[in-house]
């Protein structure tokens, strides 16, 4: 059969370029419309959530404000304890410094004067036995170095006196404290 008289249409229909353009434009429009619609829906949902949370906030604030004194009391106690915590942690531990310095001194020596502030301890020691001071300087002070004291940074002997009539020795020493 001659092809020129074959009236059957071809299997694949050829689309006109304008029709393709129409299909593409419809698809783009629908796509944009769906995206816009979805976003609008989501925006409405989020706004609704914001309103719900705001309503809950108002309710909680109302409950808190039903007894304002309770809130003020809680705030007062909270602030007071916060300040007390700071005070307790910032107070200088003078007693442990006293213990550290007194612990270095021989028991047989008399402490005739003792002064401590936040920088140094000044002690005046007296004894009728000279060897006590010898022991202090020869061995007891060496403890400072060997124990790496975390309280005393330096020891200075300020003066050493002896009363000739009644043999009594007095030493004045300054222990510089670590900050």
């Amino acid at each position, binding site marked *: 059969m001659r092809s020129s008289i074959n009236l059957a249409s071809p299997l694949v229909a050829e689309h006109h370029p304008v029709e393709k353009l129409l299909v593409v434009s419809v698809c783009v429009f629908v796509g944009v419309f769906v995206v816009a619609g979805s976003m609008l829906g989501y925006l409405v949902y989020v706004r609704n959530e914001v309103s719900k*949370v705001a309503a809950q906030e108002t309710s909680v604030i109302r409950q808190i404000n039903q007894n304002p004194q309770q*809130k003020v*009391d809680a*705030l007062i106690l909270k602030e*007071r304890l916060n300040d007390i915590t700071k005070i307790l942690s910032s107070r*200088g531990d*003078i*007693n442990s410094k006293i213990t550290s310095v007194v612990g270095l001194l021989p028991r047989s020596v008399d402490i005739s004067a003792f*002064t401590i502030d936040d920088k140094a301890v000044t002690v005046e020691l007296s004894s009728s036995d000279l060897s006590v001071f010898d022991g202090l300087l020869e061995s007891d002070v060496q403890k400072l170095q060997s124990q790496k004291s975390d309280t005393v940074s330096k020891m200075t002997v300020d003066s050493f006196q002896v009363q000739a009539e009644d043999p009594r020795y007095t030493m004045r020493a300054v222990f510089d404290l670590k900050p």
Partner: protein
Amino acid sequence: MEFGNADFLKNNKRLIGPAVLFILSIFILLRVVIPMISSIGQERSKLAESKARLEKLNSSQNAIQEINANNITQNINLANKAFPMNKEIIQIYTTVVDVAAQNGLQVESFSVKVGQVYNKDGAVTAAKTKEGGEFPTLDISVGVSASDTNSLFEFSNNLMKALPLANVNRLSTTEGNGEYDLSFYYKPINTSILSQQEFVTPLTETEKQSLKTIEEFDQN
């Protein structure tokens, strides 16, 4: 020319539909979708803020109930005894004398550096706080006599465990006499500022521990 346009439209009228759809799509994109992106962002951040605020408010409500459930008046009184709102000279004197008596000491002298008594602003000035200190203090010098040096040391130790809270700045002992430079802490409280605060946080473990510590000091 008009004939030319009409002719063009007649020949290309099938393009009108796609063109209109494209224009509408671009319009929706520019006027609806893009502005909505920023709106959604704003609303989402607003929602996140609101949720965080609600959470804080709920936490505040729980904290208020929890703090109030445990003898709040008693605890406030105790906290104010430890850290008074004013220069409680009588209370300080009583404490010093009591602690001295517990250690077998006799109070020989008691002097107070009163300093600034009134400030219109109600603010803590640098003159009132000790150097490097955060709180104003009332500085006191106490002279005591004792039979032995150890009780003088013990006195300073016990003063640090008494209420109101104090710090021993300087101790000087000579032949059974002791001189102490003490600082007692105090701080006025402004309830109107406090009542404006929106949120209350629960007591921390450290603050609960501090409450226990001052309870122990109070029982001594």
